[in-house]
């Protein structure tokens, strides 16, 4: 049983950085003529410099009002649809810390542009892996109660405005993992995310997510062109 409103910390183990995702975040697609050694080096540097932390909190969700914990009213149609049928939601945050960013900048300034770029991409892959590891842990935890998790949905995705980060960040308890929000609604360290997942009963609706659903058609990380 998980207590509603309780701050839960989880620092997942990452034994590697996903190379395929790293290349995708670097905008590489299925490029074949690229020195794999640079990708390896970027992944190794992120392995050394990452300080991965995640935090999650369970909240009641009123599906008809689109209201989380009686505090936050969802305006995004995409998110409302995504959470349809959920009676509870989990707000989460994940970070890889700021050392990765310092490393990326350092190499870029040294003229190792490709390495700097790939470190940035590998750090993005790492924070996504951390959030996935958290979701896997939560899935295992809730499956015994007949509950499954929807996919993650983050501010800035689809029509859920990035401005909403201001309201979501405190509910996700970003401070508990050393993440802060700037005046421009950006998370610092930069390689951090917040997200919401809905808790749904097994056999409930299968919500669609992914690049095909996103409105940002020009995104370089888009899987579906």
């Amino acid at each position: 049983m998980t207590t509603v409103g309780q701050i839960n910390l989880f620092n997942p183990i990452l034994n590697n950085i996903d190379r395929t995702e790293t290349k995708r975040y670097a905008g590489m697609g299925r490029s074949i003529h690229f020195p794999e050694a640079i990708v390896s080096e970027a992944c190794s540097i992120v392995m050394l410099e990452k300080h991965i932390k995640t935090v999650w909190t369970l909240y009641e969700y009123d599906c008809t009002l689109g209201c989380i914990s009686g505090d936050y009213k969802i305006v995004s149609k995409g998110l409302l649809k995504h959470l349809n049928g959920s009676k509870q939601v989990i707000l989460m945050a994940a970070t890889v810390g700021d050392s990765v960013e310092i490393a990326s900048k350092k190499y870029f300034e040294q003229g190792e542009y490709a390495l700097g770029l790939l470190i940035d991409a590998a750090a993005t892959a790492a924070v996504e892996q951390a959030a996935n590891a958290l979701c896997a842990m939560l899935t295992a935890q809730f499956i015994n109660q007949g509950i499954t998790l929807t996919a993650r949905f983050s501010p800035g995705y689809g029509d859920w405005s990035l401005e909403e980060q201001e309201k979501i960040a405190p509910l996700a308890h970003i401070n508990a993992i050393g993440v802060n929000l700037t005046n421009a609604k950006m998370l610092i360290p930069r390689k951090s995310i917040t997200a919401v997942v809905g808790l749904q009963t097994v056999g409930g609706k299968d919500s669609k997510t992914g690049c095909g659903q996103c409105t940002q058609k020009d995104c370089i990380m888009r899987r579906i062109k």
Partner: protein
Amino acid sequence: MIKIFEGAMGTSLQVMGIADQPCPEYASVKYPDEVMNIHKAYVDVGADILECNTFGANPLKLAQFGLADATEKINIAGVTAARRAAKKGVEIAGNIGPSGRLIAPLGDLNFDEACESYARQIKALAGAGVDYILFETIIDLQEMRAGVLAAKAICNLPIICQLTYDAMGRTVTGTDPSTAAAVLEPLGASIIGMNCSLGPEQLLPLVKELALSTTLPISVQPNAGLPFIKGGKTYFPLTPEEMGYWAPKLVEAGATILGGCCGTTPAHIKAIREAVNKMNPIARTILPTGVRLASRSKSIWLGKGHPTVLIGERINPSGRKAMAAEIKTGNLTAVKREALVQVEAGAGVLDINMGVPGMEQKKLMGHVVGELAMLVNVPFSIDSVEPEVLEAGLRAFAGRALINSVSDKAGVKEKVFALAKKYGAAILVLPLGEKGLPKTTGERIAIAGKLIAEGKRAGLKDNDFMLDPLVLTVASDGQAPSETLNTLREYGNVFGYPTTMGLSNVSFGLPGREDINAAFYALALASGLNAPIINPCNAKIRMMTEVTNVLLGFDNQGVNYSKNYVAAKTIPAAAVTDEDVLGALAGAVMGGEKERAAHLTLQAFAEGHSPREITAEALVKGMNLIGDDFGAGRTFLPQVMLAAEAMKSAFDALKTKINVEDLPCLGKVVLATVKGDVHDLGKNIVGALLSNSGFNVVDLGKDVDPDVILAAAEKEKPDIVGLCALMTTTLGAMEETIKLLQQKTTTTIMVGGAVLTQEYAREIKADLYAADGVQAVKLAKKVIEQ
């Protein structure tokens, strides 16, 4: 005979509506008769072991309901209810579930705090007279270790360890059944098993895997399938008949105690009882001989019949001043790098020595072991002469470690044996007596034999010992290596335990040490060495390991060896003739070949090509071509950046021959990421591409105030001001900056960034919009041409 546990307690309490007043465990205090009746229903259908209603009755979990102070009362009430229901011959298991928090560094719970919490619950359960301590539904091996250590410290009751696995056959924190067995059997579990999460069909292959990995009895308590909710109620799909169908299969797979978890009822337990009533536990496969070590997610065998395992020796600050100095400042980067590099090079185990002078080694060892276990998944060898440092490492390591090492030193060896027993660690026996180095094989065998006997008296078993034959320097004693090899052979004859040794000592004081070490390594492998403590990154050692794995039959038909051999071969670069040097240079830029680009630039210069010619006909040409490829989707951003690196390297080479002022300059660009935006990678990419295309770039950085950008524009008088914004939330700041620049200057303003579009750029009155860095360069060139 197969023993049968009772079925679900929580599900029954929920059905009766007494599970949340305020927690299921408190029902034993508030509704003792109802709890007793649930147990009784299971006794009536043939359950042999009852599980007390104490699953969440540890003080950490009870604190969530303000009931930590009632820990003893709730546990005693739980045992009493079960005892009242039990008839003669029915046993009681004190049921213990997860604390609800993860142990550091995975979570924020201190290991000692977890041990104390469990100890308090176990003391209450043992005092109330349970027959077993049963840990169940545990998702993290480290939490199970904390529980078992607490149980061993409190009582001598048999300990049942049940983890919960997912459909991939691992716990949430990555442990598979075989690894669980490798850790929990030597730690002191009496029965190992699994419960919850999956149904019997999904647990069947996991039981089979476990049966091949442990000599202990196996318990299995599946759910009645995966639940679903309908009309606000939770349903479990598996009928008693279906459960009865799977029960014999679980026994045939190796289970000796069966039961049910969530969703099971007395009818399910009855069906299981009837299905296996006449069955007996199967005869199990004998485990391989040797020593098994494990991390949280991986176990390996060492010894005869198993492939050679390299124990990486490089995490040792002794004699490595830079590493020691870095550790002293609290920086573990060098240590982490060594861990990653050694595992990448093929180390199967990492030796960790934290002998940093002036540091509190105990604390440091615990911290480093915890941190490295988050980074790599190989087992560790905890290396220290101080028992308390060894203990700190063993405690922090969520696996089965090797203790490096024990020697015949009175007052210390007893403590080290006790630590190995307590933490379920393997131990490396070093045949060093109080009288100094034993020279002969006979002396070494005698000391090793004495230590092994003492270890066994302390409770250790045959599969806990590894032996070191002692490696002495050949330069000071020509017979020393022969004696070492002889000891290795005799170890095999007398004890049969796996062997290890740090072999580089042999060549001390001689030239060409790598060759001597490699030859000695091969001889030692032939004499029975199983796991050298070695630098796995050494090319000769790697080669020798790969070759001997083929020759000793561990790499069937040399498949891996051949694969690695081919991968290591490099193709030499083609020679460049005088005629095509500019073309080759353009090609080197396009291919991102930095060294070659620098070399060809100098070659072109030496051949009389002017800097302007080199720039226009080779470097810029190469960049233009790759830019075209990028625009057409034939190449990608990292390749463009590599080309820019090659360009930079060529320019740098050229600068060694001419004055910087003589390099052609296309124009000046001031670049900035706008106020409020902390992203600068995109802007840096544009800057790098511009400066390596011949522009003079003044980079103002990120989060730059409009006034600062204006001041720079007025001072530098650039041809272009480039503004970057990556987030929708900072587009306002971009608009504000443009307004200010247009009021006070006539400079051309180019904008770009992930969220910008041509339309929006027009709307905020930017002169130019670049969708990417390559386009930014093209547009900048156009501005200059005009």
